[in-house]
C-alpha cells in the first residue's frame, strides 16, 4: 500500500516539475526507491517414496515447466571421468517402451522441450500438454534403457569436442586450477581426457543410474500455470511408483589454501597471450551468512566493469577484459581472478591483480563505489526473476541447503545493508593474495623467468597440459644430443639405413572412421619420388597423384593441378627415404627442446623446408621412434594446428612402420589403422601418370 501512495506522490511531484522546466540532462537520473520484490510463495508435496515436489504458481502464461534435481554427494569418476555426463545424455535415448524416435515424436507433438543431464531433467510445455510431458519425463527417469550404439555415438561426440579443446589455453588453465585447488583425491579436481572417455562403459553408466536415480534424494520444481491441487494427482500418478533406496554418501577432505603463493606454468610455445588465473579454494557455503556480503566484495574487485577491468583494461590496456569470481559451494567454493594478456606484460598484469586483491582488504571502499556494486548486484538479481524457473530454483535451494525461509525474499535488503567495513572484512576472509595459486598458460621461455618473484621461494612449478608436474631442469637436452643424433637413432630404431634403402616401393592400406563414416585410404609410394593416394569416405572418392614433378587431385570437382605449398608438401611425402638425408632434400633440422607427450619424454625437432614450410616432430627418448608431427596451417580463419600421432610400430621386411595413425585438425579427427603394408611389390608405373 505504501508503495502506491509513494508512486502517486512522485507522479504529482514530477508533474509539477515538468510544467516548470525542462529535464536536467546533465547527469543520469537517480534511481527510484529499490523495487519491493515480492517473490511468489510455493507449495510443497511430499511423496511416501521420499520425493519432494515444489509448486510455484505463475499464471502469466499458460506454460508449465518442471526441473528434476538429484541431491547427491559429488562422485569421483577416477579413470573413466566423463561417464556421469554421458549417463545423463543417455537417459533421453530410450526407455523400456519407447525408442528414441518415439521420444522425439511425442515431445514434438506437444510442442514441448525436454533435456536430461547427469543431475536430472528439465522439461517445459503448454499447460494443456503438461500431463503428457509428465508421462514422458517420468518414463525417461524411471524406465530408461541404455544401449551400446547410443553410448558409442555420445563417446564419439565427446571425443571430437575434446580433441578440439585439448590445446585450448583457457581449457588447460581450468584443468590446472581444478587440480591445484582441490588436490588429486577430490571430485572437483577431475576432468575429462580422451583416455578417460575411452574408458567409459555402458556398465558404469547403468550402475550410476541404478545407484543414484532415487526419489528419496530428488527434488522436483513444477513452475508455471498450475496449482498444487492440479499438480498433486499428476505427481502421484507418474512418480508415485518410483522405488526409493538407500544412496551412498561420500566424505572428502577439505581443500586447503597454500601457505604461501605458488606459481604454476604450463608451457605452450605457440602462445602469443598468457592466460592467467589467480585464486584459491574458499570455504564459503551456499546460502551461508557471508555469501551476500562477500559477493559485494568480489563485485567491487572484479565484477562487471569494476576495479580489475578498470585497472587492467582501461588504465593499462593489458587486456580486453579482467574479472574475478567468488563461488560459494557446499563442498568447496573458490575465489578466482582471471584475464588474458599479451606475453610481455604477464608479470605486470599479475602484479596489478595481486595489488587490487590487497587493496580491497586494506583500504576502505568509497561509499559511491559501494553503492554502484549494490546497484549492480540488485539489478542482476531483479533481472534473474523474470524467469519463473528462478523461483523454482530458490525453493529447491532453500530446502536443499537448509536456508532461512526468507533468504531470497530478503535478498535485496541484505544487499542494501552491506557496509564498507563488511566489504573489507569479507575480503580479508575470502580473498587471499598471499595464499593464492598463480597459474599461467603461456610461452614459458618468454615469461617464466619473470614469474619467480611471485613465489617467496623463487620457484616456478611446471605442469603439462593435463596437469602432470615435471621438472624442466631434467628436461634439459642431454650433452651431445642434437637433431642429427636423434634422427640417426630413429633410423637405427626403424631398422637401419641398409634395410631402409632396400625399400623400393611401399603400399599402405589403411581404414578407420570419422564422424561415423567409414574411411579407406590406400597410398602407393615408389622410388625415386612417385606417389598415388586414394581416399574413400562414404560416397566421396578422391585421388592424388604425383609423378615426381607435378601433382593432381581428382575428385567430384574434376581434376585440379596441385600447386604452391601443397605441391611442396606432396614432394616431401613422395620422397620415400627423405629421412636418410634431409639435407639433400633441402630440409634443415634443429633440436629445439624436450616435451612430455602423454607421459613420454620426447625430443622436439623443428623442420624447415627449402621453401619455408615449417613443422615439428617429436621423438621418444626411450624407444627413439617418432610419436607426433605438428604443423600450423595458416588459413583465413586463423591458424589451425594439425596434429598427427604415430603408434603401434611393427616390422615389415626389417623396417618398422607405425600401424596406427591419428590425425586431428581443428574439430575434425580421424583414427586410422594400417590393414596391410607391403614393400617391393613393384606397382605399375602407369598409376603415377597424371595425364591419364
Amino acid at each position, binding site marked *: 500500500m505504501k508503495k502506491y501512495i509513494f508512486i502517486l506522490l512522485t507522479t504529482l511531484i514530477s508533474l509539477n516539475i515538468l510544467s516548470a522546466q525542462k529535464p536536467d540532462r546533465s547527469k543520469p537520473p537517480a534511481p527510484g526507491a*529499490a523495487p519491493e520484490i515480492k517473490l511468489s510463495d510455493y507449495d510443497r508435496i511430499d511423496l511416501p517414496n521420499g520425493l519432494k515436489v515444489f509448486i510455484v504458481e505463475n499464471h502469466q502464461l499458460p506454460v508449465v515447466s518442471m526441473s528434476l534435481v538429484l541431491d547427491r554427494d559429488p562422485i569421483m569418476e577416477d579413470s573413466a571421468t566423463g561417464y556421469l555426463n554421458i549417463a545423463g545424455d543417455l537417459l533421453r535415448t530410450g526407455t523400456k517402451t519407447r525408442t528414441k524416435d518415439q521420444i522425439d515424436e511425442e515431445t514434438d507433438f506437444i*510442442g514441448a522441450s525436454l533435456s536430461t543431464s547427469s543431475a536430472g531433467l528439465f522439461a517445459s510445455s503448454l499447460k494443456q500438454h503438461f500431463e503428457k510431458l509428465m508421462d514422458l519425463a517420468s518414463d525417461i527417469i524411471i524406465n530408461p534403457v541404455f544401449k551400446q550404439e547410443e553410448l558409442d555415438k555420445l563417446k564419439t561426440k565427446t571425443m571430437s569436442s575434446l580433441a578440439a579443446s585439448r590445446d585450448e589455453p583457457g581449457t588447460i588453465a581450468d584443468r590446472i586450477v581444478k587440480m591445484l585447488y582441490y588436490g588429486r583425491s577430490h571430485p572437483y579436481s577431475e576432468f575429462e581426457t580422451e583416455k578417460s572417455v575411452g574408458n567409459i562403459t555402458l556398465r558404469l553408466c547403468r550402475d550410476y543410474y541404478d545407484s543414484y536415480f532415487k526419489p528419496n534424494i530428488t527434488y522436483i520444481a513444477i513452475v508455471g500455470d498450475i496449482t498444487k491441487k492440479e499438480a498433486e494427482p499428476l505427481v502421484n500418478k507418474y512418480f508415485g511408483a518410483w522405488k526409493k533406496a538407500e544412496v551412498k554418501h561420500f566424505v572428502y577432505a577439505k581443500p586447503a589454501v597454500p601457505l604461501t603463493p605458488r606459481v604454476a606454468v604450463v608451457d605452450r610455445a605457440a602462445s602469443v597471450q598468457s592466460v592467467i588465473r589467480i585464486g584459491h579454494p574458499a570455504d564459503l557455503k551456499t546460502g551461508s551468512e557471508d555469501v551476500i556480503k562477500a559477493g559485494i566484495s568480489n563485485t567491487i574487485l572484479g565484477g*562487471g566493469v569494476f576495479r580489475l577491468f578498470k585497472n587492467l583494461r582501461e588504465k593499462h590496456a593489458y587486456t580486453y577484459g579482467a574479472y574475478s569470481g567468488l563461488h560459494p559451494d557446499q563442498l568447496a567454493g573458490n575465489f578466482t581472478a582471471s584475464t588474458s594478456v599479451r606475453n610481455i606484460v604477464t608479470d605486470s598484469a599479475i602484479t596489478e591483480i595481486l595489488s587490487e586483491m590487497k587493496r580491497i582488504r586494506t583500504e576502505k571502499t568509497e561509499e559511491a563505489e559501494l553503492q554502484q556494486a549494490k*546497484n549492480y548486484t540488485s*539489478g542482476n538479481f531483479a533481472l534473474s526473476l523474470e524467469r519463473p524457473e528462478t523461483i523454482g530454483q530458490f525453493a529447491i535451494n532453500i530446502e536443499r541447503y537448509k536456508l532461512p525461509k526468507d533468504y531470497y525474499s530478503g535478498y535485496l535488503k541484505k544487499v542494501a545493508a552491506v557496509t564498507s567495513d563488511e566489504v573489507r572484512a569479507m575480503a580479508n576472509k575470502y580473498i587471499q593474495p598471499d595464499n593464492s595459486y598463480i597459474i599461467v598458460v603461456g610461452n614459458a621461455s618468454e615469461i617464466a623467468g619473470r614469474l619467480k618473484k611471485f613465489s617467496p621461494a623463487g620457484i616456478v612449478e611446471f605442469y603439462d597440459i593435463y596437469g602432470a608436474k615435471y621438472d624442466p631442469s631434467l628436461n634439459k637436452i642431454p650433452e651431445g644430443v642434437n637433431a642429427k643424433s636423434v634422427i640417426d637413432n630413429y633410423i637405427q630404431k626403424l631398422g637401419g639405413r641398409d634395410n631402409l634403402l632396400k625399400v623400393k616401393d611401399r603400399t599402405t592400406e589403411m581404414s578407420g572412421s570419422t564422424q*561415423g563414416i567409414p574411411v579407406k585410404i590406400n597410398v602407393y609410394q615408389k622410388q625415386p619420388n612417385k606417389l598415388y593416394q586414394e581416399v574413400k*569416405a*562414404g*560416397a566421396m572418392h*578422391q585421388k592424388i597423384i604425383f609423378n615426381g614433378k607435378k601433382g593432381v587431385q581428382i575428385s567430384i570437382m574434376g581434376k585440379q593441378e596441385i600447386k604452391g605449398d601443397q605441391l611442396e608438401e606432396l614432394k616431401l611425402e613422395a620422397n620415400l627415404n627423405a629421412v636418410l638425408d634431409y639435407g639433400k632434400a633441402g630440409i634443415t633440422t634443429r633440436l629445439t627442446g624436450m616435451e612430455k607427450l602423454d607421459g613420454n619424454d620426447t625430443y622436439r625437432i623443428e623442420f624447415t623446408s627449402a621453401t619455408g614450410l615449417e613443422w615439428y616432430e617429436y621423438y621418444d627418448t626411450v624407444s627413439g621412434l617418432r610419436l607426433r608431427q605438428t604443423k600450423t596451417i595458416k588459413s583465413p580463419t586463423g591458424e589451425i594446428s594439425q596434429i598427427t600421432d604415430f603408434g603401434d610400430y611393427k616390422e615389415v621386411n626389417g623396417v618398422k612402420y607405425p600401424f596406427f595413425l591419428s590425425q586431428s585438425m581443428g574439430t575434425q579427427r580421424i583414427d586410422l589403422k594400417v590393414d596391410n603394408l607391403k614393400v617391393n611389390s613393384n606397382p605399375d608405373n602407369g598409376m603415377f601418370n597424371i595425364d591419364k
Partner: protein
Amino acid sequence: MRRTFIVLCLLLLSGLPATAQSKKIEFTEYNLDNGLHVILHENRAAPIVAITVTYHTGSKNEQPNRTGFAHFFEHLMFEGSENIKRGEFFQIVQNAGGELNAYTSFDQTVYHEELPSNQAELGLWLESERMLHLKIDSAGVETQRGVVKEERKQRLENKPYGSFMEQTFSHAYKVHPYRWVPIGSAQYIDMANLNEFMDFYKTFYVPNNAVLSISGDFDIPQMKEYVEKYFSEIPKGTRNIFRPDQVEPVQSAMVKDTVYDNIQLPAVIKAYHIPAQSAPDYYAINMLTTLLSSGQSSRFYKQIVDNDQKAVQVGSFPFSLENPGLFIAYGISNMGVNATTVDSAIDAEIKKVQNNLIDEKEFEKLKNQMENDFISSKATNIGVANSLADYFLFFNGNTNLINTEIDNYMKVTREDIEYAASRYLTKENETILYYLPKSAKTTMKGK
C-alpha cells in the same frame, strides 16, 4: 487510485485457483507531437523494465555506394552524447545492473535495455540523449571503423559458411536493395566522411521514424510522464526519409552457383522468393518451415540427419521482410557426402509436401508447435516490447496481433501449406548455392 484498488483485490484473491487461459497483453499506444510512436505494456510479474527503440531504417534504406551504413551507424550510437562521455554508455547500464544490446537488419535498427524497474528513468534518459544530440567525432568514427571490420571478419570471413547470407541475397536479388546485407562493404565505410554520418543521423534518427516500446514493472501514467519529459523536446525530422520503391522482377529461371570457402564439410543453400511479411501466405509459409525443420522429429531432421545420415545439419527459415523476402533451406553434408546428394534429399522432402497432403496427426503436431512458440515468445519483457514494435511497424499498424496472431495460424489449412510449398518452392523461383571446401584435399601420410 482505482488501480490500487484492483491490485488489492488481486492480492486478496491470490491463493485461489486462477484460470489457465493465456492472458491478453494489454497495451497503450500513442504518438508524441514530434511523431514518436510510443507503446507501453505494464507487467508487474518481475521488477524489471525492458525498453526498445526501433528506428524504421535498415540496410534497404542505404545507397548502393554506401552499403553497411545503417549497421555502422548502430555502432556510432554508442559513442556518446552531449551529456554522455565516450565509452560511458555501457558502463552506465552495467552499473545500474542492467543489460543492453542493439542490432541492424534489412528493415530496421533496434536498441534495447533491460533494467531493474527503479532505473526505468535512466533508460529513457539514455535513449533520448542519443536521439536528441548524439555526439560523434572523427576519433570515434575511426575506432568504430576498426571494430566493424573485426566484426565483419568474425561474423563473415572467419566463420565457416559465414558469408551465406551475403551470397544468397546477392544471387537472388537483381534490383532491390536486399541484394546487399546489413554488414555491407568495408570500403564504403572508409569512404564516408563525418558529414555524411551526421546527414544520415538527421535524416533517419528522428522521432517520426522511431517506435519506443516499453514493457515491464511500471505505472502507465508515470511512464507517460517520463516519456514526455525526455522525448517531447526532440524536434521532429524534416527531411525526406528515403524508402526504396524498386520492385524485384519475378525470377523466371533457377540461379545456381558454387562458393569456395574455408570449410570442412560441403553445404547447400536453397533460397526461394516469398511475398512480404504482411501478405496472407506469410502464415502458411511459417508453418511449412516448422513442418520441415522444427524439432528432432521434423521431416528434414528425421529423414536426412537421423535416418539417412546424409547431413549433419538441415534446416529452413523464412526471411520474411517488409518487402518480398526469401525462404531458405540449407543442409551441411555429412563427411563424405556430396552437397548435391543433400540438395536432392531436401528436394525430395519438398516434393513430398507438394504432392501429399500432411496427415491429420502431423498437422495437429504442427499446430501445437505453433501455439507453443507463439505463447513462449511472450515469456520475457524484451520479447514483448520487440514484438509490439514489430507488429506496429511491419503489419500495417496492427499492434494487437500480439494477442490475435495465433488465430491467423489456426486458420491455415493443410491445403494452404501444400499450396505454399507448390507455389513458392519451385525450380524457376530457386537460387541454389553449393558451398565447397577451398581445398577438398585430405592429406594422410603414408608414414
